[in-house]
Structure formats: structure tokens, C-alpha cells
């Protein structure tokens, strides 16, 4: 395919684009990345990474209070949230520069600019420095990511009506915060803000928080949050927003039961976070002209190797329907696509496996308690009347959890009674987002519960709860 300047162009340098580009270079493809902002995308710059920095400081701040039990008096009068925020920016910038370095080191060409049009084997870029450039390539990978979804009437001003981006950029804390949407993003900011002393109300249309997660884990999180003073309004929706006159005047939210058409109460707040989903960035790329028509919600449909309807055009990450809008999904898809293209162009004889199995994609919510899981959740299995068994082991049965005062949590394994196949799992509590991977590796490698409990686990660790849950599946948990 030497008639093209590049073998592959990644449009977007987020966790999809940059990982795919590096993998493509490893496979010897001539690779270009086009990025209109900073390398690393939403994840590194205005997503996962800075929010984890805030969550860490929020947790530490909270723990300071817990030390008072031991006679440690902490003077918080000089607490300055702007410095917390700045630390999160430092982390993000450092990692973004790290991505720049990795791209350079691997020989990925980088164009700073905005893609104006994706054509047949062609990408037109308005460069950041004002020039224009059109490059051609055998393959083009749409990895343009997503942005916070706008709800009519609640348009972001990023001062008081905030998206997750605005929340991350905010340098002063509001006194009161209303959060629309109790998914992972809403819950993480609820945790951060509540930890720093903000009065938080979370409004959720569904009848529970963390609707994508295991209902027991969601209930555990709700109860933990409520103990800390976070107020939840589930089965409620926001009808309208009154922004008031001056900067200082409070915002007025009109709320009502989700199934009604009239608001029934008003909520006064100083700021609102609208976290009700993310909108794929698929407009303005000219995709329709090459036959790639976004579906409802702006998503692209993709085939077994994430190929779109246009020859040589692939789509990965948040723009793709089906695998979940998660950074690690984008990266995993990116590797598949890079390997597929290398295979088709004869750079490798190894054809990659086909698209991800949603079963093997972990979810992770980083508030405290953490919630992580994979596979169909128990509620889904029940609703679909699929045969399964659940084995749960509470953290309080694990010595380490008691020793460190982290007994609120559990490991739940969903398994097939006959074959002992691990169908799915949820871990809630301290370090759940790390603990889940033992079970995920087991499930994706097709180990059965017996393989998990037959593995000697170090004592004392929280991982012992994983082993005990596996033992519970065999009806032989020791510490329960």
C-alpha cells in the first residue's frame, strides 16, 4: 500500500488513539495521530486521571478527621482546594507529556490540529498553527471520543452548571452541589465534594444509584454515602433550572417524580453537575459522505474488527456502540484494530481476535466504597431467568479488612452450578477496583471457581475474600 503516505491514521490521541498508534508502530505500520487538544484525550486530561487525583486527596482529607479518634487534632483552616485542583492538573499534564514522549519514542507522527473531513483514504486537517494539510492513508481509525451529554435547559456554563470537565477545572468549592445522574461519574464527584465538606444532593431518574452495577453493591454505596450526609433523590428527575440573576444568587432546580410530567418540589443549590452520559464526537467529520452514518445517539456501529461501512475506516472507543464508553475498552479495541490492520497489510501473520466480549470488560467506580465488576450483573441474570448461582463473602470475614477497619464490602461471584464457570463477579469495598482482576483473569482464562480457591492466597490480604467467595461457591467457605 505504498501509494499512501501512511498505513494508518488515528483521529484522536486518547486512550484509544495513542495506544493504537503505539501498537501500530510496534507492528511496523507508518502511523500518524491527529489530535486537536492534548495527547491522552479526555481520560488523561479531563477524566479518569485528574478525577483519581481528586479522589485520593478527598479520601486523605476525610481520613484526617478519622485520626481525631486517636487524639490527632488537625487544623484545616488553611485548607486550600485550589491547590488540590492544581495537584490534579499536575498529574494530568505530566501523564499527557508522558504520552507525547511515548508517541515520539515509538516513531508515531503527530499532527496538532482538528480533522475537518474524513474522506476515502484521506483526512483533511486544520492545523493548530493555522495551516491546512490533507494526508492519505490506507486505513483511518476514528478515535474521537466523547463529551458530556447536554440536557436541554441545563446547558453547561461551566461556572455553576457544570460538566465533569467543569468540575475538574473548578478551583473553589461550592457550598452546595446538586448532581444529576448517579452513575460512576456522579458518584465519584459526590464522594469528592462530600469529603471536602460540600453539601451534596444526587438526583437519579432510576430507582437506584449506580444502575449499571450490582444492586447489592449499589445499596452498600448508598448507605455509606448517606452516613456521610449525601442525600439521594432516586426515581426523580430535574424538570427545569432557574439560574437566578446575579452570580451569587442560588440555582433553583424543579424536581419531580420520574414518571410524572410536573415538578413537585424545588431544590436550592449553588452548583449543578450534569452527569447523564457522554455524547460520541462523530459530527463534523464528514463521515456520512463516505457512508458511515452515526446511529441514534451519535454512535457508530462497527464490525468484528471495528471496521465501519467505509473501506479502510475503523472506529474505536467512545464513538462505538456496544462495548461501553471506558478508557480501557478504547485501548483494548485499539490494539485489536492496529493488529488487524497490520495483518491485512501483511505486516504480521497473526490475525487478532475479534471484538471484545463485554463479559471481559471490567467496570470500576472509584468512590469509597469502590465498586467493580464484570459480566452480566445478578439483576440481569435474574431478569433473563438464566441459571446461575451467587456466592458472596463479606469483607468482615477477612482478617485484613477487620485489621484496617474496612469491613464494609463484599466479593460476589456469579457462577454456573454445574460447570463452576465464573459468569460474572462484583467486588465492593476497599480496593475493589484492584481486587476484581483476579476473578476477571480467572473468568477470561476459563478457570473455574475451584481453580480460584485452590490457589494459595497470602494472609492477611483482602484477596482472601476473593478466595473465600470461591470457596463459598463450593459450599465450603471457612470464615463465614
Amino acid at each position, binding site marked *: 500500500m505504498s501509494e499512501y503516505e501512511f498505513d494508518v491514521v488515528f483521529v484522536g490521541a486518547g486512550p484509544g488513539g495513542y495506544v493504537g498508534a503505539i501498537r501500530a508502530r510496534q507492528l511496523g505500520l507508518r502511523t500518524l495521530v491527529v489530535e486537536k487538544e492534548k495527547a491522552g484525550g479526555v481520560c488523561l486530561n479531563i477524566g479518569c486521571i485528574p478525577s483519581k487525583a481528586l479522589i485520593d486527596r478527598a479520601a486523605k482529607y476525610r481520613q484526617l478527621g478519622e485520626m481525631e479518634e486517636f487524639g490527632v487534632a488537625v487544623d484545616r483552616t488553611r485548607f486550600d482546594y485550589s491547590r488540590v485542583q492544581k495537584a490534579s492538573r499536575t498529574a494530568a499534564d505530566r501523564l499527557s507529556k508522558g504520552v507525547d514522549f511515548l508517541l515520539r519514542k515509538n516513531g508515531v507522527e503527530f499532527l496538532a490540529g482538528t480533522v475537518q473531513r474524513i474522506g476515502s483514504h484521506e483526512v483533511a486537517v486544520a492545523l493548530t498553527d493555522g495551516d491546512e494539510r490533507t494526508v492519505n492513508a490506507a486505513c483511518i481509525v476514528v478515535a474521537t471520543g466523547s463529551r458530556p451529554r447536554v440536557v436541554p435547559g441545563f446547558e453547561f456554563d461551566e461556572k455553576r452548571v457544570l460538566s465533569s470537565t467543569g468540575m475538574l477545572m473548578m478551583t473553589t468549592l461550592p457550598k452546595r452541589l446538586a448532581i444529576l445522574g448517579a452513575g460512576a461519574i456522579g458518584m465519584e464527584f459526590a464522594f469528592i465534594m462530600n469529603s471536602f465538606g460540600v453539601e451534596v444532593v444526587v438526583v437519579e431518574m432510576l430507582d437506584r444509584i449506580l444502575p449499571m452495577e450490582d444492586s447489592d453493591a449499589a445499596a452498600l454505596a448508598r448507605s455509606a454515602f448517606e452516613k456521610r450526609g449525601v442525600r439521594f433523590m432516586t426515581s426523580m428527575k430535574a424538570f427545569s433550572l432557574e439560574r437566578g440573576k446575579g452570580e451569587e444568587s442560588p440555582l433553583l432546580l424543579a424536581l419531580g417524580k420520574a414518571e410524572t410530567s410536573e415538578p413537585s418540589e424545588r431544590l436550592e443549590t449553588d452548583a449543578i453537575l450534569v452527569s447523564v452520559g457522554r455524547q460520541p464526537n462523530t459530527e463534523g467529520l464528514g463521515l456520512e459522505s463516505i457512508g458511515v452514518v452515526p446511529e441514534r445517539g451519535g454512535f457508530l456501529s462497527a*464490525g468484528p*474488527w471495528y471496521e465501519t461501512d467505509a473501506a479502510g475506516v475503523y472506529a474505536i472507543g467512545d464513538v462505538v456502540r456496544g462495548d461501553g464508553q471506558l478508557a480501557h475498552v478504547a485501548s483494548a479495541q485499539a490494539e485489536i484494530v492496529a493488529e488487524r490492520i497490520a495483518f491485512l497489510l501483511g505486516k504480521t501473520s497473526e490475525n487478532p*481476535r475479534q471484538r471484545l466480549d463485554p463479559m471481559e470488560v471490567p467496570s470500576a467506580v472509584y468512590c469509597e466504597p469502590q465498586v467493580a465488576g464484570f459480566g452480566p450483573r445478578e439483576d440481569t441474570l435474574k431478569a433473563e431467568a438464566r441459571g446461575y448461582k451467587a456466592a458472596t463473602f463479606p469483607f468482615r470475614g477477612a482478617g485484613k479488612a477487620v485489621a484496617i477497619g474496612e469491613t464494609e464490602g463484599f466479593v460476589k461471584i456469579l457462577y454456573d452450578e454445574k460447570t463452576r*464457570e465464573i459468569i460474572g463477579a462484583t467486588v465492593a469495598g476497599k480496593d475493589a477496583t484492584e481486587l476484581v482482576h483476579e476473578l476477571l483473569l480467572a473468568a477470561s482464562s476459563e478457570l473455574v471457581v475451584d481453580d480460584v480457591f485452590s490457589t494459595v492466597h497470602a494472609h492477611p490480604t483482602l484477596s482472601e475474600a476473593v478466595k473465600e467467595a470461591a470457596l463459598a461457591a463450593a459450599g465450603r467457605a471457612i470464615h463465614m
Partner: protein
Amino acid sequence: MAENIPMLALSSTMTDGTITAWKVAEGDVVKRGTVLCEVETDKAVMDYESPSAGILLKILTAAGSSAKVGDSIAVIGKAGEDASALPAALQSAAPQASAPAVVAAPAAVSAPAVVAAPAAVSAPAAVSVAVSVSALAPEAALPAAQAVSRRQDTSPAAAVNPAGFPRSSPLARALARDAGVDLRALRGSGPLGRVVKRDVEAVISGTAERQAASAGSSGGAAAPRTVRGREGGLVDKIVAASRTRMVVAKRLSDSMREAPHFFLRSAVEMDRLMALRASINAGRDEADRLSLNVFFVKLTASAIVRNPTINAAWKGDSIEFKRSVDIALAVALEDGLVAPVVRDCASKGLADIEREFRTLIAKAKEGRLQSSDYEGATFTISNLGAWGVEEFTAIINPPGSAILALGAVAREPVVRKDAGGAEAVAIRSMLRATLSCDHRVIDGAVGAAFMRDLKGLLEEPALALV
């Protein structure tokens, strides 16, 4: 220690095989690669070569009996070992899905060890050259033997698997155990060729038909670059060759490489034969009318009877003269070619030959040809006249030593003597026939004599009665 020799899956769809004959007897010394027996599958009869060396201690599946894939068919061990001392379970017909410790056979089998007879044929090469399974079934669920040996080539971890039991996930083993699926007959699609749940489920659901071509497997180094519609235009389109195509490709290459071809061309005046055919067909129902090809077959058989060397085959250090004139006719199908054979054409009448070809062609179009329908042609005819081809040369279809390539019959000016003996230009129906000969068997004069006789018979078919 004595080893059980399992029935292997010799084709992708094979679930059991019938042992048509044992080539060794109990007590015989066998080497690796010694043909133990012939196995008839749903596709063809194949030789089963020994994966191990030793003494054939016991035959567990008698000739004429069938065994499921994975069942033990024999025991090989050292002299003096007692096969009956093997655990009883090993001698039963039970699938051995979970008996890695005692089944050592597959690891020792090298890729080409299992030799298969052709699975299908196409013209102009209906050949019965044995073809290794690797050529036959690149995308098939290969016999465990091959899957294992391939891993041994590439996997650093092969040493942990000395018994040759396929790498498999615990879940796949559990499922296989419950369903009686023999893991050794599977090619794993998981990391490093590991047999995983979907591989076992594919067998259980009968959909083991090769997903390998489209399903990328990390172990599938040999997977073809098949391009789906959505990725079209990205690269040249590459489509996995069917097994039939692989067989044909190998045979034609072998034939062209091994048989020194030479070509003899004649122009044949067809007017009398066309008239004869018209008069024969005039009295027949449309459904019973004789095709031109059947006249070619019959008259070719007559010419062969007069030139028996044409009906001979090169055997390496001897020449085999066949008594029966078994003529294959190349037939184009939607997805390839076949060359079904009518036996003993010399002693059959036109109507019989026509009827037999019609039956064979109908079977071919339904994909129901048996190997006996296309193997062992002593001579092949390929007629591309219907495509308007004037003349062409064909590649010999072993074990035959010659193939006749026929072009279109066309009205042409020719020079003929008129009744008064003066030369004049006349218009005749002309056919160009080209004979490809294997010079190892057929010398130029021998081939030319055949062509002279054939031309004479075609131009004056009544001579066939003489």
C-alpha cells in the same frame, strides 16, 4: 508403556470413521508413519499412519467396524507388554477426553503423518494422489496430532505438555467431559492454541465448520487474510482456498511438474458425426437425446482400444496397462470442477454412457459424488467448446497418461477434393482436438497413431463398428 492409538478426526466434519482394512497385524513391528489402517470418513478413504513406534499389541476396532473420534482403535507398545494389562477403560469405546496421562499418541504425530485420499476432485485433474491433511484441510479442525505438533513448533511451553494432551482451559475440559467431546480432535482458538469453551461448544452444536477463516485466533498463524465486505478495498481480496481447491492445486502442480507433457493437435471434420447424432436423436425424446460429449467419449474409447498404450499409467519403475477404459469428463460446477468417471466405456453403448454421466453430473451438482465416482480415470476429456474456445491444451489428470482437450465446432473453409478430384474450398464443421501426453508412457508416434485413429473415427463414426 503401551499406548492407545485413538481414532483421529481426519476431516472437519468427521465424528466417526470406519476402518476398511488393517495394513498391519497384531504382533507386527510398526514405525512412526507406518500405515496402520485405512479409515473411511464421510469424505474419503484415508491412510492412518502410526503416530508411534513399537509393536502393534492389539487391534481394538476390527476391519469393517467404526470408531468414534477419540476412541481407541489399537494399542502399540513394546514386545512382551500385555495390552490386556492396560486399564479396562482404555480399551473401551469411551471417549478419552480427560485421560491425558495415558494417551501419548498425538504428540508424536508429525503434521503430514496422516495421509488422506482426495476429498473431492475437479477437472481437468481427477487424481487420486494422496495428499497430506495439511494441504487438504488448512482451516479444518485439524487432527489433534497436527494441532499439537504445530504448538510444539512455536510454543515455548510445549514441554509442559509432554503427553501431547492439548492445552485447554479448565472450563473447556469440564464441558468436554460432560459432552463426551474429545479435546484432542480440536484446534484451540484461545491464546497459544488453547482449547477454550467456544471450541468445545462449536463441536457440541455442530458448528465446528471452520470459523477459523473468519474468526481470528491468536494461535492462527496460518489464517488467511480474508477480507470482509466492510473492509473491502483495503487490500487485495484474499479468500481461503477450499479443500477441494487445495487438492486440485496440488495435483495439477504435481502432474505438470512430474509428467513431461507434449501436445498433439488435429483438426477434425465433424459433419458426419453431427449428422449421425442428429439422426440418432431424431427418434428420441428430448430427455433421452445423446450429447455430443457422449459420442466423443465412446469414439475415444474405441480409439484407445486400438492404441492400448494410451490407457496405461506410469508407476515409477513400471507401466501399468489398464484393461478397462475408464474415461472422465470434466464438468464445471458453480464453485469448481469435477471429473466423474464412467468405467469400461469400450464395452458400453452410447445410451448407457449418457445415462451414467447424467447420473454422475447430477450427483456432482448436489455435492454427493463419492470418491469412487471420480477416482482412477485412465483418460480424461475436457470440452470447452460450449465457451467458444477454438482450441486449448489441458494438464494431464493422473493416474491417466493423456487428456483430450476439445474446442468448439465451427463452420470453416477447408480444402477438399470434389467428385472430379479437383481441389476446391468447401465449408465444413471443424473441431480442434489437442491431446496432452505423458511422455514417460506415450511416445510421439504412439500419441500420433491414437490421434490419427481418433480423427478417423470422429470423421467417419461408422468405422467404430468395424
